[in-house]
């Protein structure tokens, strides 16, 4: 335990539960609003996609008007001419849904279809259209106008009642004494039950709205209940948090409560926005995407990847080929980054060097430029006809090189770009680490008549290694997953040979429309990196033991 002991826990007053009640009320209101909006959006999209605009005066049109909705939609077939495919898909807008007469929200399934299959979204006159199917056949839809349905007003009375009931329960149970833990959890459960009733009623009303539309127009509308069921859960969260807080202040974990409080925001945000998507991605790895539906296929994706598919070992689409390229790419880059960064740092760290500040400032310029800009610049510089590099070669009387025409040429272009991009980081880390090397060691070495190489080998390197090795490990992980450079500079040319695992995964997802396969691919990449990190951790530990 640190010297920083927590102060004694104060008895809990009424403030905390009152705050929890307000938070619970606000959260459930937000959740319900979102559920309601989402439902309205889904209905609107359903109308836009499935229903032709009814002629004015028809019973359908009256039904729409009664619900506050207005739809003008038509289908176009066949598809208009495809968009020019000059730009890389990565830099293309993924979806254009804003039409002339207002934006239309789309349902999950539609979004998936649109996101998945085409990506070559193009703007058509008066609206947005997107192509279905990878081949360009099939239908295109032109959503001209789809007014969103008005969301239903929230049942404020019921929500307030639920929150008050929960507050009363908490106060009654908690004041009675007994286990604080049990009281907290019981109150939280009651609160969620109380707040759940109006949420579910609200959802039922929403579904009624959808059903009325469906009855008037024919077809089935989107359900609202599953999403609205989240509202009781969110309403229960503050009470659960209060229960947990109580647990820490009164119970076993109390000495650590400040630590947990400090950690909570980070863990919550990283958990929700990094770990939850990761878990969803992992689940996707066991599915296959078919006509907008996800089908569970078990381990099939992994088997296909790890068996190399039907491709020969030398084929760019074979997993092991790509893995080999990735390892080569990582080793080359990390070696260059480390050597260059360390050399420059050693040069800059020489005592009495003039212009040091200027050199250092100019040498970190590449780091300050966003990597996608760097990548696009270098792609231009390696252009066979217009690129600066071939012009420089020409000025020297050399033949222009078709950089993207050969594996090694494209690899060289990628590595050059990434080296430019990455050496400043290693230089700065090395510079910092060098500052911690005590100068008197060098003086002693000088007195002993050591050569510069001996000074480097026996003083600098052993003292730098512990500080540099984590940076090298992190750098290799970043390089292993360096998407921008590969995708934008060589784009995998020639014939996908210079693709690394991460760009290959991206292509499977967004060019081959196989998202489950791509997710499995990404997961394999992750496992490889994890194994690598574990291994280097072992190595570092072993090294530390050796060096003491």
């Amino acid at each position, binding site marked *: *335990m640190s*010297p*920083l002991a927590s102060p004694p826990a104060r008895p809990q007053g009424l403030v905390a539960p009152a705050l929890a009640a307000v938070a619970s009320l606000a959260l459930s209101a937000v959740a319900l609003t*979102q559920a309601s909006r*989402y439902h309205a959006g889904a209905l609107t999209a359903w109308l836009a996609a499935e229903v032709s605009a009814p002629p004015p005066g028809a019973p359908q049109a009256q039904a729409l008007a009664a619900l506050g909705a207005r739809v003008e939609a038509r289908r176009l077939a066949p598809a208009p001419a495809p*968009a020019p495919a000059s*730009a890389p898909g990565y*830099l293309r*807008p993924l979806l254009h849904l804003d039409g002339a007469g207002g934006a239309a929200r789309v349902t999950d399934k539609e979004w998936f279809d649109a*996101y998945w299959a085409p990506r070559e979204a193009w703007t058509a006159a008066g609206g947005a259209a997107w192509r279905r199917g990878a081949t360009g056949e099939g239908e295109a839809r032109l959503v001209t106008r789809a007014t969103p349905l008005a969301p239903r007003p929230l049942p404020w009375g019921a929500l307030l009642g639920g929150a008050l009931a929960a507050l009363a329960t908490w106060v009654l149970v908690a004041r009675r004494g007994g286990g604080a833990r049990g009281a907290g959890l019981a109150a939280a459960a009651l609160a969620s039950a109380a707040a759940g009733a109006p949420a579910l009623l609200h959802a039922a009303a929403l579904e009624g709205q959808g059903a009325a539309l469906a009855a008037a127009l024919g077809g089935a509308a989107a359900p609202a209940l599953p999403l609205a069921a989240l509202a009781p859960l969110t309403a229960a969260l503050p009470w659960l948090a209060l229960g947990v807080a109580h647990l820490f202040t009164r119970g076993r974990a109390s000495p650590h409560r400040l630590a947990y409080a*400090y*950690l909570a*925001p*980070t863990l919550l*945000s*990283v958990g*929700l*926005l*990094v770990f*939850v*998507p*990761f878990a*969803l991605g992992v689940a*996707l790895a066991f599915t296959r995407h078919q006509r907008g539906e996800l089908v569970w296929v078990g381990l099939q994706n992994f088997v296909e990847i790890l068996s190399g598919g039907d491709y020969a070992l030398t084929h760019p689409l074979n997993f092991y080929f790509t893995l080999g390229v990735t390892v080569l790419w990582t080793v080359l880059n990390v070696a260059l980054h480390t050597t260059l960064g360390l050399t*420059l740092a050693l040069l800059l760290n020489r005592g*009495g060097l*003039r*212009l040091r500040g200027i050199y250092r400032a100019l*040498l970190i310029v*590449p780091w*300050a*430029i*966003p990597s996608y*800009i760097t990548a*696009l610049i*270098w792609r*231009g510089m390696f252009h066979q006809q*217009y*690129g600066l590099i071939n012009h420089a070669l020409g000025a020297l009387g050399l033949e222009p090189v078709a950089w993207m025409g050969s594996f090694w040429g494209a690899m060289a272009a990628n590595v050059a770009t990434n080296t*430019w991009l990455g050496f400043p980081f290693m230089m700065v880390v090395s510079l*910092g*680490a060098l*500052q*911690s090397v005590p*100068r008197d060691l060098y*003086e002693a070495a*000088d*007195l002993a008549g050591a050569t510069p190489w001996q000074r480097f080998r026996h003083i600098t390197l052993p003292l730098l290694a*512990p*500080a540099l090795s984590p*940076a090298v490990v*992190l750098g290799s992980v970043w390089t292993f*997953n360096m998407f921008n450079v590969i995708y934008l500079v060589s784009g995998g040319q020639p014939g996908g040979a210079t693709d690394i695992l*991460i760009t290959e*995964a991206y292509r499977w*997802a967004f060019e081959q429309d196989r998202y489950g396969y791509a997710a499995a691919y*990404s*997961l394999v990449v*992750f496992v490889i990196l994890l194994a690598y*990190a574990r291994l280097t951790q072992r190595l570092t530990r072993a090294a530390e033991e050796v060096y003491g």
Partner: protein
Amino acid sequence: MSPPAPHSPAHDEEGAPRGAWARAWPHLLLLPFTALTLVPALWVVKMALRPAQSFDLSLSPLPEAWSLSNFEAVVGAPLFWRQAFNSVWVSALTTLVGVLFSATAAYALSRYRFPARRAALGALLVTQMFPGTLMMIPLYYLVDALGLLNEVAGLVLVYSATAVPFCVWNLKGYFDTLPREIEESALMDGAGPVALFWRVVLPLSRPALAVTALFSFMTAWNEYILAATFMSDERAYTFPVRLQQYVGEFSAEWGYFAAGALLVSAPVMALFFALQRQLVGGLTAGGVKG
């Protein structure tokens, strides 16, 4: 420079080598390398300053004709100021949230010993290995479910969550190097554990906080692909999304792109130069060592 010191034959007391050659040869390596490093950047500057949209074909470092027309076109484009504001706002909020979250978390991980400490550290490290391709579509769903598509808040949430793990490790490394005696003596003087962090540790950590803020800022300021995915409304675009459109689907306006690239890079560049001392100190000590 300084008179020869008897105790060290090859170096004076500043550690500077003696002899003209020993002082000159590092420049023979550093000068050409620095020049080479600056070529791509200068090429962009040149393209931005000439009144054309095509690739530049001459080897001269100066444009054949000078013009600010590219900058005028970029700045004068519809919604430019709106999109610039989006970028600044998103980056500022991300920096604020990122530094606040990571500083508190790093302090807890550095100074307290509690049951889940190692697990938390490990979990934060593991996130650095999550492949972006795996996260993108689930993230889209999540942000959509939160109703935050086309909203600054959606980007801020995602960016800070992405930036925080690295920032936590960096700051934790720095906090680890701060001597505990300072805190213990503050404790003796009657400072509470909360005041200890906010009044003693944070002010001592300014260099590392500056670097952490810089990284948070860069995460948001430079990010392209998530912004392009989440922001479909032109009014919600950030700078990078706007910028790529100059060399995107329907156009190859390299002059505009170069001018825009300079505008995007300028603030980061300025921050880098302002913070370069802290960068060396704040990254090192912080480094990434656990």
